[in-house]
């Protein structure tokens, strides 16, 4: 039919299970916060908070990212997904790995169960990197978005290997360095290497596409890439060999400027946009970016004030404010279209078909957005004030967000083709 290769949709089995599991993990995550609010007002290295953080980073953020990436990487790279079977298999290893890891942390059972969970996560990361490398064919033609995709995947693999070593060290100590210092390196390889760079790369392609706005300032993305990686590498090198010192403020500033270049690129696309109306899904992205900036602002507090609440607040801004905000919005810019394509792609033009936004309850997204902001606000207040009842209220608010989100995700996934009589 068409003489140019356009849509490169992978089979649904490589995509949809990740969305379903991610939504469930988000509910579990919010339930864990609700059930264990005291874990957010003590030192961050405690069993329940470790389980909560790994459920958030892997079960929620990474799970949805894997599903979305299997769909969007072929679009960005204009190539078929390298291996849909490998993508589908990585769902089994990622899900099993997270279950083992979260259970082990929650009950603080160090040993082979925790190590097996970590190994399965490493295996999932390796399969993801192979799929991204094979799909991007970056060795043939390189552009900045592909570079972000491949580099973030590589950082994810690095993060999971470091995590596996940490899990092993808990059961069979072998580190000569301080376990908590290595933990900080592991966490930031994940936050800056994996989440920040993946979100930078993907959003640089998708946000202009969604807004119908094009930025000509692609050099900003190159600066963003260089600075984000430079800051992270310096942090890891210095932190590993010389320990965590006040020099982290310099590395934070370098990464922050890198993030600012990305945001300037998005702002330019926003200014150039044709589509003036900003959808509620895009508003989620805007609030999530504010949370990211708050996260950067929290770092000097963590280092100089030293109170245990600042480290938890920092993590909350990044995982619940930033990553969660993006995922809550972007789910409804991707999932309805994936499911719609499966049901109506071949019927479009033949009969009157519903639009993708009719596959879910749009009104509920507005409530989800308001409760998400409220949950971030109450969580911040509760953590800063070290007030357990307030953190529990925040947990309850997060649960409401999760219920609204999961309702819409299930509604989309369970959609049956509507053919008018």
């Amino acid at each position: 039919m068409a003489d140019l290769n356009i849509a490169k949709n992978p089979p649904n089995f490589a995509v949809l299970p990740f969305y379903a599991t991610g939504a469930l993990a988000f509910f579990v995550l919010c339930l864990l916060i609700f059930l264990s609010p005291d874990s957010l007002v003590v030192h961050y290295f405690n069993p329940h908070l470790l389980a909560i953080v790994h459920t958030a980073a892997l079960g929620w953020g990474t799970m949805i990212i894997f599903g979305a990436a299997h769909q969007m990487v072929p679009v960005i790279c204009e190539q078929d997904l390298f291996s849909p079977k490998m993508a589908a298999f990585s769902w089994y290893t990622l899900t099993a790995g997270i279950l083992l890891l979260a259970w082990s942390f929650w009950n603080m059972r160090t040993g082979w169960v925790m190590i097996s969970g970590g190994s399965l996560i490493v295996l999932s990361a390796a399969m993801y990197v192979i799929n991204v490398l094979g799909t991007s064919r970056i060795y043939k033609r390189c552009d900045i978005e592909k570079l972000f995709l491949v580099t973030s995947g590589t950082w994810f693999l690095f993060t999971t290997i470091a995590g596996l070593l940490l899990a092993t060290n808990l059961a069979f100590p072998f580190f000569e360095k301080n376990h908590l210092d290595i933990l900080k390196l592991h966490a930031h390889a994940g936050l800056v290497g994996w989440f920040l760079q993946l979100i930078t790369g993907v959003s640089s392609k998708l946000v202009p596409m969604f807004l119908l706005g094009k930025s000509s300032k692609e050099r900003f993305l190159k600066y963003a890439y260089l600075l984000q990686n430079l800051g992270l590498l310096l942090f890891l090198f210095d932190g590993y060999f010389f320990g965590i010192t006040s020099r982290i403020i310099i590395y934070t500033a370098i990464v922050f400027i890198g993030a600012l270049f990305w945001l300037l690129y998005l702002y330019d696309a926003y200014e150039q946009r044709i589509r003036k109306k900003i959808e509620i899904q895009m508003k989620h992205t805007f609030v999530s970016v504010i949370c990211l900036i708050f996260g950067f602002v929290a770092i000097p507090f963590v280092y100089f004030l030293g109170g245990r609440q600042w480290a938890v607040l920092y993590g909350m801004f990044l995982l619940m404010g930033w990553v969660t905000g993006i995922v809550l919005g972007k789910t409804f810019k991707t999932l309805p279209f994936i499911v719609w394509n499966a049901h109506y792609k071949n019927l479009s033009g033949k009969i009157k078909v519903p639009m993708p936004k009719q596959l879910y309850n749009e009104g509920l997204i507005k409530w989800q957005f308001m409760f998400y902001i409220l949950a971030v606000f109450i969580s911040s207040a509760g953590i800063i004030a070290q007030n357990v009842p307030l953190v529990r209220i925040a947990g309850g608010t997060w649960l409401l967000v999760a219920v609204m989100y999961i309702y819409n995700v299930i509604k989309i996934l369970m959609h049956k083709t509507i053919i008018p009589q």
Partner: protein
Amino acid sequence: MIISAADQHFDQKTKAQAALYQVIDPELFVNVIDLGLIYEIEFKENGAIDVLMTLSTPHCPMGDAITNGVKNALEAEFPGKNVNINLTFNPPWNFAMLTPSGKEQLGV
């Protein structure tokens, strides 16, 4: 797409255009005519219909759905005719290709 009154296929092209008003871009909720995605419709001697069209972006994940929609709508309007979709990004789609109605629908 502008149809000349002197065009020997004027009636057929007008019918085709009317059919394509029903094909909606699922992401933008605007039909393909008002979006300016259809560059040319040609009625061939052999009975085939050739459509030269574009997408708002070369990476459009809904590309298949939109081109399928165009093919389906024309096959329904002209039963028995073979519809060929030729996709081009030369010239690439831009803001100026929107019709006044398309601009209004996008809130421009």
